[in-house]
């Protein structure tokens, strides 16, 4: 089967430091990869390289499908009510308002539609960013620390969402230092590729 996301012989340099090298990765439909490792080892850098936001020091990334990115920065305007902040992205992604309302409901944000984003808690913001991710309907998910700030129920919800996404033929790269339940996922320890 053809890989939806493939990275070949990646190396990443930040400043004068080589974080990792010789890292290759290939994910087909329904597959997932858990990128693990301690802080500062280059998980976020790897995600950003896969998303095409950071140039790798060496190697190449190929993606055959559109990419959705979830990271620590939620890209939701702080002064704008949650519903409008999410509507900007869902309109850009061409998914309807009713679909976004359903995603908000699913993520437990139904009551918060009129609340400006800056009044939301860390966990609620993370849930809002997940709603944006779902609305994008991209086959490749790149999640950087998706569990940060979430409670137990939120953690389980993320695990369910990932499972559903994979069942629908999507693929997913999760970078997390926390344990996350992913069925039959490859586990990539960046420490193995440390320079």
């Amino acid at each position, binding site marked *: 089967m053809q890989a939806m996301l493939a990275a070949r012989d990646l190396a990443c340099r930040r400043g004068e430091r080589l974080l990792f090298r010789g890292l290759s990765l290939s994910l087909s439909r329904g597959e997932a990869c858990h990128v693990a490792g301690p802080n500062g080892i280059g998980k976020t850098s790897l995600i950003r390289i896969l998303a095409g936001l950071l140039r790798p020091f060496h190697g190449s990334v190929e993606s055959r499908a559109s990419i959705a990115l979830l990271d620590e920065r939620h890209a939701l305007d702080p002064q704008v009510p949650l519903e409008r902040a999410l509507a900007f992205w869902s309109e*850009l992604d061409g998914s309807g308002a009713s679909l976004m309302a359903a995603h908000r409901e699913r993520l437990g944000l139904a009551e918060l539609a009129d609340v400006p984003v800056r009044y939301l808690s860390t966990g609620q913001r993370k849930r809002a960013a997940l709603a944006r991710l779902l609305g994008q309907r991209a086959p490749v998910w790149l999640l950087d620390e998706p569990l940060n700030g979430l409670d137990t129920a939120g953690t389980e919800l993320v695990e369910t969402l990932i499972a559903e996404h994979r069942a629908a033929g999507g693929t997913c790269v999760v970078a997390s230092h926390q344990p996350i339940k992913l069925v039959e996922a490859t586990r990539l320890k960046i420490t193995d590729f440390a320079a």
Partner: protein
Amino acid sequence: MIGRLLLRDLALLMPGGRRGGALLPLLFFLAVAMLYPFAVGPDAPLLARTGGGVIWVAALLAAILPLDRLVAPDLDEGVFDQLAVRGVAEELAIAVRMLAHWLSFAPLLLLAALPAAALLGLERETLRTVLLGLLAGTPGLAAIGVLIAALTASLRSGAALSGLLLIPLSVPILIFGAGALARPDGGGLAFAAAISLLLVAVTPFAAGAAVRAAREE
């Protein structure tokens, strides 16, 4: 898609907008025009002769105020990253931002130039030259503003630095735009418009590159 980007930018930048404070430059502009007669005294011919230049300087200073709201918040919030993942080029996002920035200050500035001209006792002919000059020069000011905002967005003291950077870069527009007041043959205005055009054409690429470079840090 361009329409959606523009709507969001306008909602953030326009007076009464979400990012707030857009009326401040305007009030600042009027305040300078009001203070100047107090400072030089009630000498009507002197005011009428120098008033046009004062309006230009006030407009330039007013253009500095909103710079820190133009690019930095979106860079911090990861909006440019999310746009890039969706295949929206930084250049396009910046071009739209430039248009929104111009719309948020220039039309109101032109309107505010009328009461300012009355405060300074400008002649009708001078006012006409000032307005045409501002119309030709403000797109350039907007372009410089966005460019500097993008270049300094990832710096710690970016806001203070951007004001300092804007002043020398806007000197050409000021020389030709305000120079048209002394020699009303239209040549100055044409030069100011030409500089504006050049800046508007270059800024999306330069500022787009700056936004991409900020990611590497």
